[in-house]
């Protein structure tokens, strides 16, 4: 039963983090929230017995996509840090 409650809490957290990822100000914040969203999704998938999908979501959503997003964001900002 406690497991069920945890599952529903995670579902709520997924919705909240998805909403926040779109509405939060600042690109980097949004991407960090997006990776939190991915991690929560991973946990949800393990609850639903989808272990392979959970692993893929963890690696792609939280790992690879975050890296690509951060790189893209660093390329689309005005050159403050690039003055090397």
């Amino acid at each position, binding site marked *: 039963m406690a497991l069920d409650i945890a599952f529903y809490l995670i579902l709520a957290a997924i919705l909240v983090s998805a909403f926040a*990822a779109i509405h939060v100000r600042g690109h980097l914040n949004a991407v960090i929230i997006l990776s939190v969203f991915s991690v929560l999704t991973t946990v949800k998938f393990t609850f*639903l*017995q989808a272990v392979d999908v959970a692993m893929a*979501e963890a690696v792609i959503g939280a790992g690879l996509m975050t890296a690509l997003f951060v790189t*893209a964001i660093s390329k*689309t900002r005005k050159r403050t840090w690039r003055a090397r």
Partner: protein
Amino acid sequence: MMQTAAYLTAAGVFAIGLYGMLTQRDMIKICISISIMDSSFVMALVAAAYVPGGAAPIAGFEALRFVDPLPHALALTAIVIGAGILAIALALTVAVYRHYGTTDIARLFIATREDS
């Protein structure tokens, strides 16, 4: 019950992603929305596969029932395809910023109208 809740979450996530894609003007934010929308379909596939009391589809487990493995395979494929498309979207964003110095899609429409 768990399945219904999972479907509802997937639908909510899909609504948020679609809403973001339609209303955001910033290309990075649109990319984020696309990513969220993609994962909503993965969630729906996984929810469709769920069987109450089913075990993960690994034949080594001793269980009476297993969850349906086919949607898991489809979901994996969908995740990877989504990642590929998202990478292209990011590449396009970076290329656009290089030429126009902005990632605001409404401004870009105005800027590219002069070309035609």
